[in-house]
């Protein structure tokens, strides 16, 4: 029979082995995740010749040609501006509308409340393509195709169910007692929402903004259909067109891909906590 000491020793060895195995698995995952990103960055600094002959090595020589090409003929700054406009306006307007709606769903009483709320949040999973044809026909009729507005309104609308849901679940946790004392001091409903609830909800608002900004920035389908004019092209659509037009210049495409990812990578690094919160909010609440 083994002594307790030996058992303990064996356990320690087992644990060390298990730990090493786990670290190996996770290191492999990190490799699979980061290789594409590192490759994109690396290749974006290769000359065209180098890229063809030396596809998987380090850049030799290290050049900025691709970024120069992009800035010169790729109109990439315009695409950035267009993406920023569509993202900024649609996220801001969606947030404002959702704040008002979520306040009513969280803190007011009115007939049909639960039913309307359930209807709104059930729309979250409906794929955008299902609404697209009538929206396109309608936008053509009212001459909104090829204006920022068509994409902004549709993007804002598609984000709305999730936004209302997330904010309502947060607003509901603000204690009634605070609201009541404000009411006694003569605060109106609007005052309660903007002076009491919103200041208490900054983390929920940041979470919502992070998730929504990411979604619109990365959105392709709607921009593709509603913003077909060259002057309105967003970054994602621009990249796709760039691939079609300049199939030969792959390193320049990779440089464009990298540039398009930078803003979202920054947001992710800074606001990861909020992002995790936003993604898990849908699944863990209301269970």
């Amino acid at each position: 029979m083994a002594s307790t000491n030996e058992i303990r020793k064996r356990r320690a060895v087992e644990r060390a082995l298990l730990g090493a195995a786990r670290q190996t698995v996770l290191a492999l995952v990190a490799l699979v995740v980061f290789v594409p990103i590192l490759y994109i960055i690396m290749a974006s600094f290769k000359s065209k010749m180098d890229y063809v002959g030396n596809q998987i090595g380090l850049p030799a020589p290290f050049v900025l040609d691709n970024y120069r090409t992009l800035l010169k003929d790729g109109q990439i700054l315009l695409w950035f501006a267009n993406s920023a406009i569509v993202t900024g306006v649609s996220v801001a307007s969606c947030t404002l509308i959702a704040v008002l709606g979520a306040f009513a769903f969280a803190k007011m009483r009115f007939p049909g409340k639960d039913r309307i709320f359930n209807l709104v949040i059930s729309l979250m999973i409906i794929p955008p393509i299902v609404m697209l044809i009538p929206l396109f026909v309608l936008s053509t009729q009212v001459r909104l195709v090829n204006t920022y507005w068509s994409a902004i309104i549709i993007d804002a609308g598609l984000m709305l169910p999730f936004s209302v849901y997330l904010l309502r679940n947060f607003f509901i946790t603000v204690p009634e007692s605070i609201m009541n004392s404000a009411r006694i001091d003569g605060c109106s409903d609007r005052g309660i929402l903007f002076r009491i609830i919103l200041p208490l909800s900054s983390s929920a608002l940041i979470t919502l903004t992070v998730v929504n900004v990411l979604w619109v920035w990365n959105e392709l389908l709607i921009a593709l259909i509603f913003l077909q004019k060259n002057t309105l092209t967003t970054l994602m659509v621009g990249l796709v067109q760039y691939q079609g037009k300049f199939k030969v210049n792959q390193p320049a495409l990779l440089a464009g891909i990298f540039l398009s990812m930078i803003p979202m990578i920054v947001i992710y690094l800074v606001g990861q906590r909020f992002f995790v919160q936003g993604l898990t909010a849908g699944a863990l609440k209301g269970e």
Partner: protein
Amino acid sequence: MTAAKRSWDRKAYLYILPTLAVIVLVFLFPLVQNARYSLLEMGQKGRPYSGMRNYGLLLSDDTFWISLRNNGLLILLVPLLVAVSLVFSVLLFQRIRGWKFYRGVVLFPYITSITAIGLFYSLFFQGQGMLNTFLERIGLGFLTVDWLGNKGWALAAVMFVVLWREFGFGTILFLARLMTVEEDIFDAARIDGAGWWRRMFAIVIPRLATVIEFYVFLMVVTMLSWVFNYVFVITLGGPARSTYVTEYYIFMQSFKLNRMGVASALSIILFLVTAALAFLSFRFRKRLYGEYE
């Protein structure tokens, strides 16, 4: 008077009005309109009523059946995604050194745009792409295939990208749920001598049941109707329509081939299937976990 006032805030409707207006404009009106379009001859002047003709055209188009098969194949990724997410979430939950860093790593693909990463992978899988170059370099040249030009491999390549980008979401979801479980349970089970598999099936999976069910539902819907972006940037449905999916079919029919009626018919079918899945999931949830709600 005060009692009546307290039971019903008339102003509430003002607050939900903008939400409702946008919902009607962006969701409800288009859905009704689409149902109508699917019964009309959209290409003709005056859009005459054509009964179920669009649905008939759809069902007799073999591209539609190819699309449907591909969505079906994509759904096969769901069990794989669940298994991978389970393993990774448990690994991270065990407070392995650097787990917060790894959590960030695992979720990273999910924040990348499908367009950007899909374009990268379209270069990666090309005949002269990085994958084949790499295979040749390490002496596995006999394994090289024109991944995106080969009918048998193109969809597999798309599936790989979907897996790469989506696995982090499940992992984070399961991890968040696990963190709400008292850690003592795991310690107690370990002390009682329960092995890894035993702990997985007796403790982890039951605690995660609701989240797993939710995730499966979400992923099935994703594979059915949220994969347009992948196909559009990686294969454009090719080669020879072998990677068409239902959304891409709708896109092509309506915006390239000007057959809006047929596209509307498929839109309606897609909507009904999604709604039916949501309803089933809701019922299932209620029956299984009703007592906790």
